[in-house]
């Protein structure tokens, strides 16, 4: 097997839906496992020893089952999932992109034969209805429904094309992209981010924090601890915990602020939180998450993408006057297509067909040539 064939085979496997499903199921199973087996460091070592026998604990530790979400195999699996999302998206994108960038504006005969839903409205030449009148009537009916239609000339024939929400074709890729953005943000945070505890006494200052492994990280400014306190409800339960600090920086006046639970201080590259443990108010937590803005971008993009996926339907409508080769009879062919929720579209399509018929009747009436027949009938 040549290299090209090999790469192609790998690509096919990576881009296949089966691989995606298997990988996602693996993620589900392993993530669930991590909620059943007690995890370090959330569980204290003595509790781990109480819960599992030494032998079992050794096995669990060796396989990283006691820290599933940071184990190499779980992270590797998430990476594989990301790669498969990329492969699957790239594999299907060209096709979708063609839909998006080169919309089929004029339906060829083969296309007209198979498209569903479709309708053919017969035109009565004696009523004075010709191609131009049919196109004009359809234009009016489409405009009444908020479609801006365009006239398309193809091989000497003139047709109408109207569409809505073309972007919906690409929405699913936006969702996939957003998932990758979220993963990327999490990876950036995992590699470059850090967390630390900061315990201070009144009047003390800090310009750096010490991580769990002993490394020092500069804050980029100086923090002075001014005081801490708690508020209670009349019945004695805790209402709020606060810490007063002052931000001191060269060249700017000192800035006093208050840190509360649910209201952290975000300054420069760090966010400083009121600690939940203890509740003494003296302990703060400092977090540096350089990737979090990527995560939030991903979340917003995903929200928008999902709205497009589920609630914006790409609707395409075509109107073509057709003259039968055998009988020479003129009729109007109307076809529609949606990329999802077809059941909801069909009644609207039928409505549109009806209003085109009505427009045609009105045209006949306006011409006022006294022909009693309504001028159109319905075929199909």
């Amino acid at each position, binding site marked *: 097997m040549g290299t090209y064939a090999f790469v192609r085979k790998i690509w096919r496997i990576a881009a296949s839906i089966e691989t995606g499903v298997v990988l996602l199921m693996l993620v589900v199973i392993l*993530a669930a496992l991590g909620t059943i087996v007690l*995890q370090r460091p959330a569980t204290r070592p003595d509790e781990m020893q109480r819960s599992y026998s030494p032998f079992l604990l050794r096995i669990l530790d060796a396989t990283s089952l006691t820290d599933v979400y940071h184990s190499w195999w779980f992270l590797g699996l998430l990476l594989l999932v990301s790669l498969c999302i990329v492969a699957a998206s790239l594999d299907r994108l060209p096709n979708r992109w063609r839909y998006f960038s080169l919309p089929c504006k004029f339906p060829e005969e083969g296309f007209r034969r198979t498209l569903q839903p479709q309708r053919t409205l017969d035109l009565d030449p004696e009523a004075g209805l010709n191609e131009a009148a049919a196109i004009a009537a359809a234009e009016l009916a489409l405009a009444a429904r908020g479609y801006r239609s365009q006239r398309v000339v193809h091989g000497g024939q003139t047709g109408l094309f109207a569409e809505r929400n073309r972007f919906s074709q690409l929405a699913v890729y936006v969702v996939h992209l957003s998932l990758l953005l979220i993963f990327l943000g999490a990876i950036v945070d995992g590699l470059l981010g850090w967390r630390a505890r900061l315990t201070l006494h009144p009047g003390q200052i800090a310009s750096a924090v010490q991580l769990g492994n002993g490394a020092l990280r500069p804050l980029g400014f100086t923090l002075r601890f001014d005081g801490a306190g708690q508020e209670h409800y009349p019945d004695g*339960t805790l209402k*709020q915990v606060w810490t007063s600090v002052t931000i001191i920086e060269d060249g700017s006046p000192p800035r006093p602020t208050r840190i509360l*639970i649910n209201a952290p201080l975000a300054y420069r590259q760090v966010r400083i*939180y009121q600690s939940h443990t203890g509740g003494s108010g003296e302990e703060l937590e400092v977090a540096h*998450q350089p990737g979090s803005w990527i995560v939030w971008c991903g*979340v917003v993009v995903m929200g928008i993408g999902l709205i497009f996926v589920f609630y914006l339907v790409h609707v395409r409508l075509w109107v073509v006057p057709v003259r039968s080769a055998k009988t020479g009879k003129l009729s109007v062919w109307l076809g529609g297509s949606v990329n999802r929720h077809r059941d909801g579209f069909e009644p609207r399509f039928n409505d549109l067909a009806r209003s085109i018929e009505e427009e045609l009747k009105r045209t006949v009436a306006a011409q006022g040539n006294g022909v009693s027949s309504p001028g159109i009938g319905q075929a199909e």
Partner: protein
Amino acid sequence: MAQQETAERQPQGGKTLIVLAGLLIALLLSTALLSGSRGADLLTETTLLYATLLFYVGAAALYLGFGLRATEAYLRWASIATWLGLAANTAALAHHWYQAGHPPLTNLYETLLSFVWALAVLTVVAQGRYGVRVIGMITMPLAIAGVVLVEQLRTAVHPLSPLLQSNWLQVHVTLAILAYAACAVSFALAVMFLIQDRVETRTFLAICSAASLAIYASVVAACVRIWGGLAGAGWAEIAIWHGLRLKAPLVLLSWAMLAALAVVATPVACCALDFRKPGKRLMQIAKRCLLASILLQGLSLAVLLRLKGPSAAAASGRLPTPLGSNPFVVTGLVSALLISMFFLVLAWRRADLERLLPPVELLDRITYRAICLAFPLLTLTIATGAYWANQAWGSYWNWDPKETWAAITWLVYALYLHMRITVGWRGRRAAYFAVAGFAVVIFTFFGVTYLLRGMHAFV
């Protein structure tokens, strides 16, 4: 449960069940109101919750009654009972909101009450807008299980802890409730689809009895453990009527529960045998055992409710409620009972159900529609939860069990959507998938709270 028993005993008589159910609801409601009026307030939360439960039970009983009699009038009255239950539910929510001074979204009691409310609203919508008239047959039993759990989780109103004082809490929980309610409706629709798609009654028997067995087994395990195993010492008192009390050794109760478990397990065993070598007799036995197990399940529920003894954990801070014992245990027993009873309707009145249900294509599509509604809501629930966690804990993702299971639920529904859109799964496989998805939702909502621990301890 009174109405349902009446429903079973009254196979004859046209309007009898409606009248009986109505009279019973009126009687029970007036007793509750009268006993409540000795205090100052007539419309207390307790009464409102009781009324909610009664109306939902009435609605479910009428749906089951329809299953027995195939009288369409029952459905109309069931729908009226649903509306009344919804009204009582709304009043209970409003009352609690007014009393607590914050939206009812901050603990399991409040969220569950809101969830039941959302479920009832979606039921009414599905009935009115999509014409799925018997959807209440699934959603009303779910609502009953919810209210039963609500009744027991009720605590005195506490002011909000600092962690919960965030606007994100309200957004996050509201989205979660709506998402879970949409998942519940998709589940109900998927079951309706399976009925209409002529899935064999035998398959339903296998699924229903397996689900009951799973619930019952875990409940029995919990009871036996609480009562000191199969050789535990001690006596329990069962309050039968006002002064009348029955004394029973705990060992006996443990063994009785095990015996009941064996009966509940028989239909599953019969189904398993039948799948290997089909035969009519096995199914007959399975059905009989299911009937027997319904009676036994009802009995053990009654015993558990009236039990005064070491198991009646008078948990501190909990208001005295008519239903004692562990809230999840009682709810589990009620759910198992309702699942078994649902099968009865199916076994006896399948043809009438099929006549009333919309065509399979429509059911298939609206199941998908419900999931199309649930999935963005699930996404937003996780996103707002992550944002709030980042504000409160300083990290947007902590791999807390609740978070992890929310992500798992999201992945399961993402798989559903991919199977449907990309692979083209329709019909039966998609419906089974929707049913499984809701099982995951239930685990995320209650299982994580009950079985796994984490930072998300308030709900």
